[in-house]
């Protein structure tokens, strides 16, 4: 009874959000705790047969599109309540992390991409990509994206995801983890995000028999701590004949490039989200700050800078969502069209992080350069995310090689393939 009342309230809240554009952060502060997995069970019968008032209110039109919204709105609600940039920026002890992670876990978000029979929430790829965009808009600094990616990787080999934070190795196309003949893993992975905070690491390893996917207890590897530009952990993980907790062959055609492309699209969506927020706070600041006796937003030079920031933000968003849409609707990673979508997003979003971030800082002046101001939470993370899963330079070389190998007259057909 209590649960169906919760469902009803959740439905009404979401319907209200949709119809009246109520900021989702302002209502029903306990309902985001309602786990996705439970919600999905309740939703499933409703989306086919409209049963009763609450469903009719909440589900109109395309059930899939509506449910995309619900997962993303759940994430946004949690971020707004527990990951407010200003609050986090003032919290020197990191006290915000545990409640945020607990709420995300209770809502089932870290294991969004893990099917229910592998211990996850069974959300669609599209829903998860939506969550990542929101995570970028809030510059979320807990291993949400990493755990989602790890769960997704493990699910490729039907390995059940454990509870708690995870990360993935390798996190660079240049590193390799080897599966030894005795079933242990060896190798070194650099720049592994949040490895220090992870309880488990999902590993892609190559051996004589092909590619395997493994789950490794983080206590069994050596982790040298490192920090990225935004002071988030980016660590070196060394596997020295480590015995995995579980290991399975990767599905046919799945290789390290597939993992890097998925990781790259993940980072692209986060960068695009961070740029949306940088545009937002820069516009707001320019409408508040007075210099030379007028708001700086009234100076044409500032307006044109912000218009360029809007362009970079728009380009990043278009590239990232296009790539996400492609991955969500493709069964494999091996076509040139999928490759182009994924690496173009990483390249273009990384370029936008540089150009757009520079404008956001320029508009803010000295205040944006202070540790007290929230701008760095977005700008430095966006710059750092460029490095993960292959930098824009790396992918540009790979894309250029592919284009050259196809030949000049096959370039346009590739670009126009979607």
């Amino acid at each position, binding site marked *: 009874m209590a649960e169906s009342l919760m469902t009803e309230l959740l439905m009404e809240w979401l319907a209200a959000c949709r119809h009246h554009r109520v900021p989702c952060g302002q209502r029903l502060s306990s309902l985001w705790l309602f786990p996705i997995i439970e919600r999905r069970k309740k939703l499933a019968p409703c989306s086919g047969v409209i049963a009763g008032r609450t469903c009719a209110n909440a589900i109109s039109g395309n059930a899939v599109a509506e449910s995309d919204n619900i997962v993303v709105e759940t994430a946004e609600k949690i971020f707004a309540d527990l990951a407010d940039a200003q609050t986090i920026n003032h919290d020197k002890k990191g006290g915000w992390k545990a409640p945020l992670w607990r709420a995300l876990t209770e809502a089932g978000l870290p294991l969004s991409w893990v099917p229910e029979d592998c211990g996850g929430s069974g959300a669609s790829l599209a829903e998860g990509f939506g969550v990542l965009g929101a995570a970028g808009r809030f510059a979320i600094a807990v291993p949400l994206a990493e755990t989602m990616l790890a769960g997704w990787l493990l699910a490729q080999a039907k390995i059940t995801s454990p509870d708690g934070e995870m990360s993935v190795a390798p996190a660079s196309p240049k590193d390799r983890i080897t599966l030894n003949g005795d079933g242990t893993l060896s190798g070194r992975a650099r720049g592994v995000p949040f490895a220090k905070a992870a309880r488990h690491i999902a590993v892609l390893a190559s051996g004589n028999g092909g590619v395997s996917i493994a789950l490794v207890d983080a206590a069994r590897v050596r982790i040298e701590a490192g920090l990225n530009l935004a002071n988030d952990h980016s660590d070196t993980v060394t596997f020295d004949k480590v015995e995995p907790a579980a290991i399975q062959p990767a599905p046919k055609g799945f290789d390290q490039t597939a993992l890097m492309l998925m990781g790259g699209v993940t980072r692209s969506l986060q960068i695009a989200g961070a740029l949306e927020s940088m545009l937002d706070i820069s516009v707001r600041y320019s409408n508040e700050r007075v210099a030379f006796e007028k708001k700086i937003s009234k100076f044409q030079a500032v*307006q044109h800078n912000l218009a360029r920031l809007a362009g970079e933000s*728009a380009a990043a968003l278009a590239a990232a969502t296009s790539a996400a849409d492609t991955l969500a609707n493709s069964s494999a990673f091996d076509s040139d069209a999928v490759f*182009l979508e994924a690496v173009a997003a990483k390249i273009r979003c990384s370029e936008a992080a540089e150009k757009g971030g520079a404008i956001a800082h320029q508009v803010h002046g000295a205040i944006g350069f202070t540790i007290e101001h929230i701008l760095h939470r977005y700008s430095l993370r966006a710059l750092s995310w460029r490095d993960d899963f292959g930098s824009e330079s790396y992918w540009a070389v790979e894309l250029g*090689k592919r284009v050259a190998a196809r030949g000049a007259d096959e370039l346009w057909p590739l670009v126009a393939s979607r």
Partner: protein
Amino acid sequence: MTAALRFDPIRLPSECEQLRKEVRAFLADEIAAGTFSPFKPNREDTDVPEFSRKVGARGWLGMTWPKKYGGHERSFLERYVVTEEMRVANAPTRRFFVADRQSGPVLLKYAPEHVKMDILPRICRGELCFAIGMSEPNSGSDLFAAKTRATKTDGGYLINGTKIWTSSAHVADYMIAIFRTSQPTKENRRHGLTQFLVKMKQPGIQVNPIGQITGQFEFNEVVFSDYFVPDDHVLGEIDGAWKQATSELAYERSGPERFLETYYVLTELVRAVGSKPDTRSAEGIGRLVAQLHTMRRMSVSVAGMLQAGKEPVVEASIVKDIGTVWEQQLPHRVRDLAAFVEEDAGNRETLERQLSFAIKTAPKLTIQGGTTEVLRGIIARGLGLR
């Protein structure tokens, strides 16, 4: 959020792919027949009326217009495919491009029925070339400073004054122009301009070619001396052209022609570096292709919004801003990357010829159809800064 900029990942529907094949096959036949060369980018020099009529006969002009006016009632996305394939092939589209993109839609919206019935089917058959009469010697980006006067007379208006930078005026059959019918008011400096349909090649109109830095004579000065326009050639509201101009812009500013103008140098660069490029060339090409892909996805997204009946004016301005800056820089980036291409690369001569033309073309790309400064002003307004 300040500005909800939307670029949804629109995909071209499956009927577009069949159409794309048809367009490619048609263009390949025309190239084989010697109608035009894909390696000769200065297509503005080549006025090919028979090509225009063939495109019309294939049903690729007025694609989105009602059938009663000769149109084909197809989608905006299908038109998009035809436009981009023609542009990439360097097809000689000058004769019909403006009429199909811009003038036809204006007539559809504002012309009297008998004028529509007379002119639109001829555009669809590829028989008519249009020019746009906006700029004047002292009125470019500042459209509302236009002074060329339309004075009321019996049954119509007498036009006196000068339009300038008017592309294709020397071959055009018609022009859609704005003329001053009243003085601006204190409250509204945009008041007082009216849109007219003008028949070219008539006494009272003198077209003077203007040489361009590319060596082409593609734009003109057009002088009107007591030129008579009948009442039924008024388009829309008297003194109210300013209300009509803005909705055109989303169509004018977001199409594939806004980033593909110098595309041919990229194709030739890929040919010149061969199948195993060095790291520097590979990285340069990879970045350019990633940027191109992103712009095309943005542009297709705007086309999808137009198809859905929206007016994405800010998004369209962003596409033109980013797209024209990119196509302007492209020949210079290609030149950088081509610096170490082998002397004996088979297409070296073609690449060099194309580069010199593209580098000379580049400065106009961020001026025509709305300067970068004007576009950024529109975007800033969309952001709530003005």
